[in-house]
């Protein structure tokens, strides 16, 4: 039968219930930034390094707390967990300054946490309580925290990318921001690069030379669709060549690799506004969302792949570097881990004990005064 548009035969075969191929990130040539070089050039103190590690532990424990809350039916709707990708947000937000703006997709808890939002308020949002960062109106997918420079998490794939162009424009031209060197950091998933709006946004960002760091969190899958099955050109960062935008790739599991690349880009962008497209190669350890269980995952990813990626756990990589440098030891590590767990539990309790929204809130904030 020849009635439908023919897909190339090779791709077609691959897609039928064959065992999904292993995702070999190691074959991608990535810059080899050493932790030493990054620590030296940014003059990072031991306290700063411990703080970073604490932040990464915090994200991990916070996300685990979210998972527990979801299973206990405390949390409704969709829940997208960030475990495995921690080094990406942390490495690109460590050089954030007041006035900078970040946006993300629905997988947004970590970005908001790293920017300094109160974990209790984030958790309360995920619980849909009026004490939440978005007053219970947005939920897990739509965290917003203006005071901490978080311009939101968005639920429509690729929807946030064109918004970054507007934010970048304002940072460059609005009287309030002009000349201050503020930047916009826009996070996006590999899946969003196939949306039309993405391409319009890339072209405009470059055309108008806007100070936007686009951070592609290439975790290799959009729900159950691997990059190979969705993108004609799987060298994702190179796709912005069409828009003459500068780009590079980085090992998204290694905090120092990410920061080592991002910090100079950001420093330069503050002085010479122009967009940059940074592709972080990373991996999500959980399913796409809470509904994406082990069996469904087996339709699209190979379980052995997870084992390979677990060896590249961003938390363990950072821990090892800090231990080797004697920045942390067994005792401090245990104390920090406990602190993170307590933070997550406390956030859960705050959310739990917060009042639900009251009826009059229903019609508040539909229109501004």
């Amino acid at each position, binding site marked *: 039968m020849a*009635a439908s548009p023919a897909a190339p035969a090779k791709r077609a075969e691959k897609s039928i219930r064959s065992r999904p191929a292993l995702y070999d990130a190691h074959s991608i040539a990535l810059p080899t930034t050493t932790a030493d070089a990054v620590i030296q050039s940014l003059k990072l103190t031991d306290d700063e390094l411990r703080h970073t590690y604490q932040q990464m532990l915090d994200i991990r424990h916070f996300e685990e707390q979210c998972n527990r809350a979801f299973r206990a039916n405390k949390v409704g709707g969709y829940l997208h967990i960030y475990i495995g990708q921690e080094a990406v947000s942390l490495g690109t937000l460590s050089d954030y300054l007041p006035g900078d703006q970040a946006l993300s997709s629905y997988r947004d808890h970590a970005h908001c946490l790293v920017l300094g939002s109160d974990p209790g308020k984030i958790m309360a949002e995920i619980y849909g309580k009026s004490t939440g960062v978005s007053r219970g109106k947005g939920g897990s997918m739509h965290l917003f925290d203006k005071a901490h420079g978080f311009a939101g998490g968005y639920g429509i794939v690729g929807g946030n990318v064109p918004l970054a162009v507007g934010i970048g424009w304002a940072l460059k031209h609005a009287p309030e921001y002009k000349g201050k060197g503020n930047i916009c950091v826009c996070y996006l998933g590999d899946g969003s690069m196939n949306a039309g709006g993405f391409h319009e946004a890339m072209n405009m960002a470059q055309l108008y030379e806007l100070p936007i760091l686009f951070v592609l969190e290439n975790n290799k899958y959009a729900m159950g669709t691997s990059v190979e099955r969705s993108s004609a050109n799987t060298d994702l960062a190179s796709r912005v060549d069409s828009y003459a935008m500068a780009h590079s790739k980085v090992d998204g599991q290694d905090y120092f690799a990410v920061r080592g690349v991002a910090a100079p880009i950001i420093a330069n962008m503050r002085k010479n506004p122009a967009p940059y497209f940074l592709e972080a190669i990373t991996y999500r350890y959980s399913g796409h969302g809470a509904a994406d269980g082990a069996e469904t995952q087996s339709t699209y990813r190979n379980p052995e792949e997870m084992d390979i990626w677990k060896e590249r756990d961003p938390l363990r990589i950072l821990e090892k570097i800090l231990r080797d440098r004697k920045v942390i030891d067994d005792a401090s590590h245990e104390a920090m881990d406990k602190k993170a767990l307590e933070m997550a539990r406390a956030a859960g309790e705050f959310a739990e004990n917060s009042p639900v929204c009251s009826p009059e809130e229903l019609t508040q904030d539909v229109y501004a005064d």
Partner: protein
Amino acid sequence: MPKMGDAMEEGTLLQWHKQDGETVKSGDVIAEIETDKSNVEIEAEDAGVLHIQAQPGAIIAVGKVIAIIGDAPASTNGASSNGSGNGTAAKASSPIQVRTNGSKPDAHGDETVAGGEGAQYKIDNSDDKDIARIAPSVHSQENTGPTENMTYADAIRLALQEELDRDEKVFMLGEEIGQYQGTFKITKDFLEKYGPERILDTPISEAGMVGLTVGSAMMGLRPIIEFMTLNFALVAWDGIINHAAKILYMSGGQFNVPCVLRGPGGVGVQLSAQHSQDLAHWYANTPGLKVVVPATPADAKGLLKAAIRDNNPVVFTEHAGLYRTKGDVPTDPNYIVPIGVADVKRVGKDVTIVSYSRGTMLALAAAEQLAAEGIDAEVVDLRSLQPLDLDTVINSVKKTHRAVVVQEQWLFYGVAAEFAAQISSAAFDYLDAPVERVAGAFVPMPYSRVLENLAVPHEAEIIAAVKKTLERSA
């Protein structure tokens, strides 16, 4: 029973991987359950001795205890939960389900919820199971011949399958419909059966998907898009409104665009503003499009087949909240429900309730409650919004003299407004009261369960609206 997916309300316990009384570690796989979407393994989240409280095969609501991980052998009595929810579970040292704080009713409970300043208000949890209960009994004109009891989702699946089998020009495209087996598993096994030329997994490119659909339909193919949800069709509105709907007209009748744009729409449960809305009426406002809004499994099957065979672009709005409702579905592969014919789903004499999709189910449930009070409501299910079947509605109103129109969407400029106008124009002299509208609150859908309950229409509002029409004319 842990909640393993966003729409999960209950799960089937398939098997235990650990024995009763066995000591388990945190992270051990202890059981396998089947949810509405897939089979999942449950891991222990605490270490201790496993006390099994439910047997394989049992269907258990989310939040109910299936086992307790404790340190001493638990008395089955004290820990078993038999419909009383979280309260009993709290006594156990570590019930599998309620870990964080088992003793408090939460926003998902079916009781009362404490408001900010201690205010108490009732959450109306009219969930889909009640609807499932009444769905099979509804009156329908076409339900003759052999039938099989199946879910709304399976009825859609059956229609797709029959039409894919019947006409090789029919093909499907969408995100995750092939290898992943469909987000709602509607297309399970389709890729294997029909191959990748007829079951196209697409990138997240809704505009591109609609382009491919419109172009191939112009060439005589019969594409069916599955939008993962209809919310994502908004990305492709230029293709739908400015292209698909108008090409026949602009080309002076040279090119028609026979295609189906289908997927779940309507309000969900805590999916918040971007994922929970009924936009079917927007399409119905556009000449060139047909818009179908089935409420029952039988209608879903018959209308989808009609849509696939139609020579126009048809927006086929499913409702995720109806996917698991059941009804008798004709198995005849030639069973078709024509687009543009409303159905009287309940005959009554006192008032006409007009609705569609999930609203019809709410209307039927409200009618049952009204019957207990001696009020006999007729329920007209529109089944399609474009073309709309005015005659059936007007004939009903001429008999009952009162009308209430129910929609999930925002109040203004909607289906209810349209029917209020149509009814007053065509049956003004028959009306004993103004037409009442029941609609969603005029706000983007809030995430908070409490606010969401206030934002979406329930049976209670329908009942109140019916009574208003009766009081007015009493």
